[in-house]
């Protein structure tokens, strides 16, 4: 029986056998060996064995992966180091393993660089704008932080549902403070939104007492100032800032309430006997009238 190595050293072509799969060749070899009636064809069997060996060798080559090289390249890509391959062709020839991965690598790198470049450009523009605004006395970053603080709030539980709802008797502290100075009733018992007292200042003036309360609400701060004069004020009363919009008067009983707007805020001012009151915030005139009606 001839050595298989001889066949390997002198490879021949067996087109019919080479088209068959390993299983078919194995089956064919088995049939040839089990053919008891006739003498086995050694040359034919050797040919089958040679083709099977060749196919097994090809299959083994196809499955073999250079794991060390693949690991090395993975580290290079993962850490963002530049690849040793300077051209796509070089990459293809140097590494048959992970061929598809290497082909797509240059595209990923260029996309990453593009994103980084865009981010750097945006950062530069933001810094330039911030620097310019800062040069003119406007702290842009702090303004953004303040806007975020005013816009976004953490509200827990069921409170969130009720913050924008009307509140009954929102000024109990102010009412108590005013009651200690005068019997005149000037404090409303209704507010269109929930108000939370944040500050109360009682000042003894030369001409009376001034009570200034500040409230926080979902619409921003609300201030309510009540001044109780010792005598009826004749001059030098408060000067109120207002915009070009028309003022509106709202008469309830003997008291005339003056409604005016100051940019985005609206205000109601009235004088009841010797008590001057002013409430202002992000209200509408109609809401102010509702508050006045509740006095």
């Amino acid at each position, binding site marked *: 029986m001839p050595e298989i190595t001889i066949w390997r050293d002198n490879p021949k072509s067996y087109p019919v056998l080479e088209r068959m799969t390993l299983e078919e060749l194995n089956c064919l070899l088995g049939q040839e060996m089990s053919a008891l009636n006739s003498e086995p064809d050694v040359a034919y069997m050797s040919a089958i064995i040679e083709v099977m060996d060749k196919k097994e060798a090809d299959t083994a080559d196809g499955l073999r992966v250079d794991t060390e090289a693949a690991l090395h390249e993975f580290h290079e890509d993962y850490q963002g180091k530049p690849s040793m391959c300077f051209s796509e062709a070089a990459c293809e020839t140097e590494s048959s393993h992970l061929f598809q991965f290497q082909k797509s690598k240059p595209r990923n790198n260029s996309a990453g660089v593009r994103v980084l470049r865009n981010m750097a450009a945006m950062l530069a523009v933001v810094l*330039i704008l911030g620097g310019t605004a800062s040069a003119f006395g406007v702290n842009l970053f702090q*303004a953004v*932080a303040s806007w975020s603080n005013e816009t976004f709030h953490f509200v827990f539980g069921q409170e969130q549902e009720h913050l924008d709802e009307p509140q009954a008797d929102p000024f109990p502290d102010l009412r108590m403070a005013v009651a200690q100075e005068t019997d005149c009733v000037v404090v409303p018992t209704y507010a269109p939104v929930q108000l939370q007292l944040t*500050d109360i200042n009682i000042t003894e003036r030369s001409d009376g007492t001034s009570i200034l309360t500040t409230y926080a609400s979902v619409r921003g701060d609300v201030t309510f100032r009540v001044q109780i004069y010792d005598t009826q004020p004749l001059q*030098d009363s408060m000067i*109120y*800032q207002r915009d070009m919009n028309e003022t509106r008067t709202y008469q309830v009983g003997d008291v005339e309430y003056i409604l005016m707007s100051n940019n985005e805020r609206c*205000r109601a001012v009235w004088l009841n006997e010797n008590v001057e009151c002013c409430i202002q915030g992000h209200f509408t005139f109609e809401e102010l009238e509702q508050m006045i009606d509740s006095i």
Partner: protein
Amino acid sequence: MNKRIRALLCVLLSCITIFGSLTVANAATGGGNTIMPLASDYFDSTQASLSALGSGKVRIEIEVVATEKMAKVGVASIVLWEKKPGETSATIAKTYVWGNTDNMTTLNSAGHYLKLTYCGIAGAQYHASVSYYAQTYSGSSDTLSYVTKSVTAY
């Protein structure tokens, strides 16, 4: 070639951004043509008055109420003008600023009240130029000027 065009565009865009910012900032600060606003996002109401107390003393009383709680609110400066008997024009008698006067401002409040007494000359006329001040938590601030009526000390 493409890179050169791209670089040129980047430089052009940067220049537009910088000069645009400068223009906006200039416009915001007045740019020489200041428009006095009628309304204020900072001040709700103000009050300043002088009253004669006798013995030549003059009391200055100021109250300022902001539209909301401020980081700092109060008075930036008070210039007290004096016109002595027989004189035709007033001169500055006293200037009150943050550096030389306490309690000119309040922190974290929506209002401020200030009362000062000046020992003047009986028979002299006084009036004050007041500059109110309010600064928000974002750091932006505004001032508002007012001149009081005159009062004659006795």
